[in-house]
C-alpha cells in the first residue's frame, strides 16, 4: 500500500513536471528573439500590448529580448540631451527581427534651429512659387526629424485669417539647400506623398 502511494506521488510529480516543462518550452517556441540597437538613448522600455514591461534598461546600446510571436510591442525611450522622448509600436511576426531606435531631435532643439532657417525657407518658397507667393503670408515654420524636413503655413495676406484657407507646404533640405517636396495643400496623404515620412505628414495635418 505504502509502495503504491509512493508510485502515485511520483507519477503526479512526473505529470506536473511534464506540464510545467511543456508550458515553458511552448512559451519559448512561441516567441522570437528581437534585437534592439539604440543610439542617443538614456532609457528604453519595451512593453507588451497589455502594458506589462518586458524589458527596461538605462543607457542601452544593444540588447535582445524574446517576445511572443504575432504581437505588437510598445518601445518607449528617453533621448539624451537634445533628442526626443517618444514611443513607437512595433509588430512582431513569426521571424526574428531587429529594431533600431534612433531618436530625432527634441522639439526645443528643432524650434531653435527653425529660427535660423526661416530666411532660407522663405527664399526657397519665393523662388518656387513666384509671383503667387507674394499674395501669401508665411507662418508656422517648423522643422522635423534632424532638421532636414520643414513645413510652412501659407495664408492669403489680403484676407482676414478666419476667412482664408491655410495651405501647408513641406520642404526638404538636401546638400544644404531647401527645396519644395509637396505642393501646398490643406492636407497630405501617405498614398500621394510617398517620399515624405508618414510621421511628418501626420504632424503637419494635425498641427
Amino acid at each position, binding site marked *: 500500500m505504502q509502495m503504491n502511494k509512493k508510485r502515485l506521488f511520483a507519477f503526479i510529480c512526473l505529470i506536473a513536471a511534464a506540464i510545467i516543462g511543456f508550458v515553458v518550452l511552448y512559451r519559448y517556441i512561441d516567441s522570437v528573439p528581437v534585437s534592439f540597437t539604440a543610439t542617443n538613448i538614456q532609457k528604453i522600455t519595451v512593453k507588451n500590448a497589455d502594458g506589462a514591461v518586458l524589458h527596461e534598461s538605462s543607457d542601452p546600446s544593444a540588447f535582445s529580448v524574446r517576445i511572443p510571436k504575432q504581437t505588437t510591442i510598445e518601445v518607449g525611450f528617453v533621448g539624451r540631451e537634445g533628442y526626443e522622448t517618444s514611443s513607437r509600436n512595433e509588430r512582431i511576426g513569426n521571424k526574428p527581427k531587429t529594431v533600431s531606435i534612433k531618436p530625432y531631435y527634441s522639439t526645443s532643439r528643432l524650434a531653435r534651429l527653425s529660427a535660423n532657417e526661416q530666411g532660407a525657407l522663405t527664399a526657397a518658397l519665393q*523662388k*518656387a512659387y513666384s509671383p503667387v507667393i507674394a499674395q501669401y503670408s508665411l507662418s508656422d515654420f517648423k522643422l522635423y526629424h534632424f532638421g532636414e524636413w520643414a513645413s510652412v503655413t501659407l495664408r492669403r495676406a489680403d484676407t482676414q485669417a478666419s476667412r482664408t484657407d491655410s495651405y501647408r507646404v513641406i520642404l526638404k533640405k538636401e546638400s544644404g539647400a531647401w*527645396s*519644395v517636396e509637396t505642393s501646398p495643400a490643406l492636407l497630405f496623404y501617405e498614398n500621394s506623398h510617398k517620399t515624405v515620412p508618414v510621421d511628418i505628414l501626420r504632424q503637419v495635418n494635425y498641427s
Partner: protein
Amino acid sequence: MIQRKHIIAAVVGFLLLCLLYFLFVTLPRIGKVPVEIAMHPSDAKVTVNDETHSSGTVYLKPGDYTLIAKREGWDDATTTVSVKDEPRSIALVLEPNSQEARELLENESVITEREALAGIAANARGEDIRAKTPILSKLPYSDIFGPFKIDFGFNQDDNRTPYFIVSFATAKGRRLAIEWLKKQEVDLVKTEVIFEGLNNPFSNLEVSHADE
C-alpha cells in the same frame, strides 16, 4: 485484482490523452481567435504571417493580417483583415488565368459556390470598413454654421477604401470640416478628403527650383 489494475490503467491512459490534447491542441490556441478561411478553388493555399495553410480554421492572435491565396492556373487573391476578439469567416475567390480553370467555371454548382463565397467576402469587407471607419454611419453630416457638408465614397481601385467629400464649404467651413473629422478620430493621413469647390492656386503651378 487484475481487473482493477486494468481499470486504473485505462483511467490513467484516458487522463494522459486528455493532458496531451490540452498540451498540443488547446494550449497553442490560448489567446488566439478561430478564423475560418474558405477559398475557391478549395485546394488553393493561403499565406498568413509567412505560414501557409489550406482552407479551414486557423488560429490567429488579434491584429491586422494580409492573406494571399495562391493556386496554379489562377490569379493570386489578396485581402487584408482585422482580427478582433471574436471568431470570423474570411472568403477568398481566385480568378482564373488558364483555360483549364476557365472551363471549371462553366459548371453551375461551381458558379453558385463562388457566388456564396463572394457574398461572405463582401460581408467581411463591409464589417472591416465599418469597424475601421465608424464615422461612416454618421455621414452625410451637415453643419450650417460652417457651412460645410461631409459625405463619403469608396476608392474605385479596391472598392473598400473610403474617402470623404467636403462640399458647400467656405474657407472657414473647410477648416471646421477638417476639425470635425479630427474629432471623429479619422486618420487624415490614410483617408483622403476631397474639397469640392476649392480652387488651390498652387495646384497647377510649375515649381521653379533654386538651381534652375
